[in-house]
């Protein structure tokens, strides 16, 4: 067992990816930032003493406390509080957890949808391929935010209002996921077209391996590199899309705010000098999206065979 782990570790250590990673300071820095953010967001209950989603634990008298280093700040609220007396730091971390969950789920949803459509289209070809690719063209002509707004609007129409608040997060995941899949479909189709003419595919076909098996066991692992690169950059886009939708007021409800909702709520207080309510969620979102993008860039450079 130990030796196995060791060899796995050695394999990683000897790989090109690891080499390129430790040679890239931006990748290291962004990875560290992301690990911290992910850890704090997913274990937020252990990181902060406050639960901003529990209205009964809040005190309105704490509202609008500025950050602790300013004149009126309190040590127990490091980044100050918002208009309801919620501690900004915990609210941001709870909020970023929602943003991350929505972002990840949406990108996984669109990855599965896009890759399975792209892969099958590239493999089978013919009319099926034509239909799928025209569908992606249609999808690409609709801006993703518009698409997400549309899905959310329809969902509001068909889901009853009581249900909607609970369903909001799934609607968001679907709305963002459905607008991102064409990227994955196009890339995986293109890669499949290259792969399917290679000898190992022909060999498998000759010995009678089923199409499904060839596609998902043989071709899929070979086209995952570009898909992962798109997925990483797409993650940042999905998080931003979620924030945009929430900022526009069609995302998650204000009682369980995501980063975008927080920025929207804080926006009302910009003129009154309570800058921290909108500034911290905004800067947090920038750092999060920027780190993911940097990591994505590094991945693209490393995994792109043409650049090597």
């Amino acid at each position: 067992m130990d030796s196995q782990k060791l060899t796995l570790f050695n394999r990683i250590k000897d790989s090109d990816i690891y080499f390129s990673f430790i040679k890239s300071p931006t990748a290291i820095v962004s990875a560290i930032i992301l690990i911290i953010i992910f850890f704090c967001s997913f274990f937020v209950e252990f990181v902060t003493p406050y639960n901003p989603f529990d209205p009964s634990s809040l005190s309105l008298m704490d509202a609008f406390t500025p950050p602790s280093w300013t004149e009126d700040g309190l040590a127990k609220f490091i980044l100050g509080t918002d208009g309801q007396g919620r501690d900004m730091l915990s609210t941001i971390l709870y909020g970023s957890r929602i943003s991350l969950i929505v972002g990840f789920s949406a990108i996984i949803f669109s990855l599965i949808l896009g890759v399975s459509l792209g892969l099958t289209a590239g493999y089978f070809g013919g009319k099926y391929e034509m239909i799928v690719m025209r569908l992606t063209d249609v999808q690409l002509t609709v801006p993703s935010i518009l698409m997400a707004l549309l899905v959310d609007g329809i969902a509001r129409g068909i889901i009853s209002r009581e249900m909607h608040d609970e369903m909001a997060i799934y609607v968001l995941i679907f709305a963002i996921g459905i607008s991102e899949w064409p990227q994955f479909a196009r890339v995986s189709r293109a890669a499949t077209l290259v792969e399917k003419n290679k000898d190992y595919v022909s060999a498998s076909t000759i010995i009678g391996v089923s199409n499904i098996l060839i596609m998902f066991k043989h071709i899929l692992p070979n086209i995952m590199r570009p898909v992962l690169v798109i997925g990483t950059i797409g993650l940042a886009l999905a998080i931003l899309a979620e924030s945009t939708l929430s900022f526009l007021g069609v995302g998650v409800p204000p009682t369980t705010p995501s980063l975008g909702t927080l920025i929207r709520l804080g926006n009302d207080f910009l003129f009154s000098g309570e800058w921290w309510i909108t500034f911290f969620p905004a800067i947090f979102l920038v750092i999060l999206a920027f780190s993911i993008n940097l990591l994505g860039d590094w991945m693209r450079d490393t995994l792109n065979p043409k650049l090597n």
Partner: protein
Amino acid sequence: MKSKNLIKFLLATFFVFLSTQSFAKTIKWSMQGDSLTLDPHAQNEGPTTMVSRQVYEALVTRGLDMSIGPQLATDWKTTNPTTWVFNLRKDVKFSDGTSMTSEDVVFSILRAQQPTSDFKEYISTVTSVKALDEYTVEIQTRDPNPILLNQLSNIFVMSRKWCHENFAIVPQNWDAGQETFSATNSMGTGPFKITLREPNTKTVFKKNTKWWGNVEHNLTQIQLLPIKNAATRVAALLSGEIDIVTDAPVQDLARIKSSAEHKVESTPQMRTIFLGMDQAADKLRSGNTGDNPFKKKEVRQAFYQAIDIEAIKKKVMRGLSEPAGIITFPGVTGYTKELDKRLPYDVNAAKQLLADAGYPNGFDIELRCPNDRYVNDEAICTAVVGMLGKIGINVNLFAQTKSKHFKELKDDQGDFYMLGWGVPTLDSHYVFHYLYESGASWNKVNFSDPEVDAAIRVMEGEVDLDKRNAAIAKAWKIVRDNIAYLPLHHQVISWASKKKVNVPIRPNNEPLFRFSSIN
């Protein structure tokens, strides 16, 4: 020769340009919500009346100092205790040029009494109205009515001919979502006329050149541009895009005051904000207990005592509110300081009351709120959610735009809701008649008490002021002891405008642009 003509032409254009620049005086006015309808009898709601007031006029009206004075009627007398005779002005013309006669007044009062009218409660004591001659109107009331003039000051006069021509004989049925010509067009005798109406976007008022009155304003145009988002509204004001905001967000007053080109004025508003709890339904629509906890007074009192109104005043309203014990404010007949005292804020007592009522673990409830009507309405509701959470009530907040909020309330969809109430007649009767009388149109808590109903009849027909005041005091005591509603605070309003814009602030939050000027 030709060049001379050209110079003449250029000079002419230059002068035209110059004169239009100096004479075109436009006030751009903004608030968070728009008028709900232009039909002056369809919705008894603040901003709706604010807009109607610029276009339509009534027999009598309140001036800048809020005292009642003549408007379309020059004088009036009571020939016997239940008969009033009004002499009309003879020089009044509608903005289409036709003269206003007693026919129009009679038509308008009857129109405001139709079932679809939201103003019928104002004049429910009027039993008959008829034209004695072209410029004299006689109004009969059921009993001697001491507040008839106050009530008539909100009944706007429309043109009978215009209504007949445009299928607007009865008021728009706003509750049913009806669309009528009169809801999107207006034609009155007032100092302004509406030339463009895009609901929730833009309403343009132009000076009515046929107006009978003495022109004291120097405006050629008013534009109403509602901006829902508080920060956007303030940004528009500070950037000069908007001239006046009649509901400046309390959190931004300091910022606006610090601008050299802007000013802020505040005044206690004639409006009380409160929460309603349906006490008659057998089962709450949004509850989880299968019954209606609000039927028990203990539950209503627990809600009351769980609300820390001082915290709301300090943090949400930034000091600009006055905690309230009853739904009426200083200056209204029947108001006393004693009545306006609140029950103490006491979380433990509230918990105990809930336990006594049989809900030791609380219950679920939905709180309905407007988000573009009152000062910080949604923020108040959010604060209430947190405070009730402390006594175990799991409140689900549902905030929406006022037109939907009011419509759904009238449609009996609310268990627990926010509402604000102004008293245009400055008499307690108005509050009781709309909010407390059994089956009254805005009595959505379904409060019913025969003694209160009897007291309301006394208020309508008692000319002996002592007896009348005793009835009012008694009615207030009953509803206050019953906790029929949960009063929150009397609103304080703030108007922010450019320094060169002069619109006198009034405690009913209604701008009177006929007294406004722009330098």
